[in-house]
């Protein structure tokens, strides 16, 4: 337990920075970050003001009595979407309010959430490939098209994961993945095994769903700047997908 009010303000400030940046990199909307951080700081009877941007978080914590302020800025780490963390922090913030958690307990829970494992790689690849086949079926593909979409998605996602490991630019990773999937499914179509449906749906697993929906939530919430930034990010990803598809179209002369 901190000795003085000043120490409490500093401790809470540090943990709130971590909570906010974790939420941002895991794919929470700006409004959600603001409510969660405010909720935790109110549990400690502190007042927190936030400046939330896509790449960094600025925070200022104060109790309404003293002159002591905690002000700091933290970079958002570029991890991918992770709803286990969004969901875990949401639960944790309510327990902070209801069970009067200390700062140390919050740190412990954050460490636990960060160490939660992702799904095994083979399961991710298989299920996402199954999703690719589902998209193909929804667009009206035949059983052969489904198999083509499955294989193309599987290989495309594998390429994307490998490209991430090699730390390529994220948009370039999407391009590689889209190009791989389009080349594979395009080859099958070119050989006369499948139809257009397999080709068009083999890249759909790359859709930037979280950026696009968060764009709208932010815009309508009045966080116009963040909305625009997220929208442009989503557009760049879509553009990378289109570029990969375009490459295959030009090579196969569809």
């Amino acid at each position: 337990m901190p000795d003085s009010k000043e120490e409490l303000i500093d401790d809470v400030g540090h943990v709130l920075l971590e909570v906010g940046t974790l939420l941002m990199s895991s794919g929470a909307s700006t409004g959600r970050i603001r409510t969660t951080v405010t909720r935790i700081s109110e549990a400690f009877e502190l007042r927190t003001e936030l400046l939330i941007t896509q790449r960094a978080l600025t925070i200022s914590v104060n109790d309404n009595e003293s002159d002591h302020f905690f002000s700091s800025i933290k970079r958002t780490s570029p991890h991918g979407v992770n709803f286990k963390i969004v969901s875990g922090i949401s639960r944790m913030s309510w327990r902070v309010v209801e069970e009067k958690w200390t700062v140390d307990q919050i740190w412990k829970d954050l460490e636990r959430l960060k160490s939660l494992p992702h799904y095994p790689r083979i399961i991710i690849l298989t299920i996402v490939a199954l999703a690719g086949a589902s998209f193909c079926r929804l667009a009206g593909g035949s059983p052969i098209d489904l198999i083509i979409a499955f294989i193309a998605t599987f290989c495309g996602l594998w390429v994307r994961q490998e490209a991430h490991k090699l730390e390529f630019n994220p948009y370039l990773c999407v391009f590689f993945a889209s190009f791989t999937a389009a080349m594979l499914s395009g080859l099958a179509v070119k050989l006369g095994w499948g139809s257009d449906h397999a080709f068009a749906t083999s890249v759909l697993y790359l859709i930037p769903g979280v950026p696009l929906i968060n764009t709208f939530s932010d815009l309508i919430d009045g966080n116009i700047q963040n909305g625009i930034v997220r929208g442009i990010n989503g557009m760049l990803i879509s553009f990378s997908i289109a570029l990969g598809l375009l490459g295959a179209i030009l090579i196969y002369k569809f």
Partner: protein
Amino acid sequence: MDTEWLLIFEKTIWFGFAAIGFGILFNVPTRTLLPIYLLAAVGGLTKVILVHFGAGVIIASLAGASLIGILSTVTAHNKHAPPLVFSIPAVIPMVPGIFAYKMMLGFIKLTGNTSASDYSQILFDTVNNGLKALFILMTLAVGVSIPFLLTRKASAKELKIKKGNKTT
């Protein structure tokens, strides 16, 4: 007629699988996978049935996405996770991939050499497909946000607390 309904219900299954794929990709908690499947299936079924009865694909998508948005707040209470964990993977299968693809193909054709008579037809198709893709994407985002726009609450949990029957 019967085979048509069979096709509609078969699509429901695929909507669920597509949503699960995105759920896994977004690393959702395991306990939320089944609700995501069901939400996507119900939303997808709504959309397909509305299209079957002659509604436009945009309105049908709005209805499906709104249903997913509303149901996701209910599920959020039971499964202790924010609504977006359920709603975002569940609406993604409704993303208009084919329209977007046709639009892109159209743009490529428009840059090539086409005769004046072909050009207007291709332009017509491209703009039509592109607008459909754009509007469906927008309706999906609107649909997911609808519960919060209507209730004017920032958190799904506040909805319940204000009513007085508090949960842990």
